[in-house]
């Protein structure tokens, strides 16, 4: 397997795409998409991150073994996020008034020193 050299043209195209993505993120933040603002922001950030991984970090041209390691990192991150969040969203914990559908325990004294 010989080394794959990514040309500067591709690097500059990816850079332009990342700049565009940054512009869209800032624009979208000022629009009111209600609860979808965060979804929009995360989708753009993930597209940008994927471009960086594939081209700047050469994942697209890496060995299958390296690609497997990269996919594993995302998979393990997903496990951590999913399992922790299922716990937090189904258990009552300290929130500001009116946020959670669960009872708000009187734990705010914990923050008062």
């Amino acid at each position, binding site marked *: *397997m*010989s*080394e794959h*050299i*990514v*040309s*500067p043209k591709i*690097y*500059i195209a*990816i*850079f332009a795409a*990342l*700049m565009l993505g*940054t512009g869209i*993120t*800032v624009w979208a*933040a*000022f*629009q*009111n*998409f209600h609860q979808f603002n*965060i979804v929009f*922001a*995360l989708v753009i*950030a993930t597209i*940008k*991150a994927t471009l*960086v*991984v594939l*081209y*700047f*970090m*050469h994942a697209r041209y*890496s*060995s299958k*073994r*390296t690609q497997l*390691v*990269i996919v*594993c*990192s*995302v998979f*393990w*991150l997903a496990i*951590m*996020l999913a399992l*922790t*969040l299922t716990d*937090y969203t189904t258990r009552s*914990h*300290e*929130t*500001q*008034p*009116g*946020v*959670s559908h669960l009872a708000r325990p009187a734990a*705010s004294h914990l*923050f*008062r020193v």
Partner: protein
Amino acid sequence: MHRTGDLYGHFQTLEQQKETATLGMWIFLVTEVLFFGGMFLAYTINRTAFSTAFGIGSNTLDIKLGAGNTVVLIMSSLTMAMAVWSAQVGKKKLVSFFLIATLGLGTVFLGVKAVEYKQKFDHHLIPGRSFDMKYHPTHPMAGDDLKELALEKEEVDKAFAVDPDINFHGQLYFSLYFGMTGLHALHMIIGAGLLLWLIKGSFAGRFTPQYNTPVEIVGLYWHFVDIVWIYLFPLLYLIDRHR
């Protein structure tokens, strides 16, 4: 320095040797993904629970500085990628040039971050005894836009009505803000140290089409730090800008 790209005994080819180094770096980056992932998780849980305080906290950040820094950091990723390319095609002077450019842009990023941190100190937004989200709107400083400040005061007053404990919940936002951007900055400082080491090597002409593994794997690290910022910028600066 003996690592000049000679083939070590336990590898069969130079390519295999390089791939092993790259794979090792990726495995380190997997641990970094999970490390930062834990912080993003803490952020997500607290943001859901204390969305009013997080919105107000986020709006105190300077969007121009944040967006500008995003551009600077992505640009530094481009120059880092170009440094790898220059080494691969054997343009030794360009390797030094692009590495120095990357270091320069990284330094600009850290400088801007320092300006932002200083502002938070001045505005009493450092978690601790003197933390007060009402302080800055009621204590204008030189160069402040008074109209903007009046709007900010109105916003903060409204938030206090929704969440009376906002000065406690706001400290959670700023603890996460300083924790996450601080750890990111620490990674940048380590990256700057690695770049200095690479620049020294590039002046000695160490990086060639046959041997450029250090440039490649420091590049991986630098791009990873860039990715962390790609998520930090919208999550910390752009939570509650639509109104």
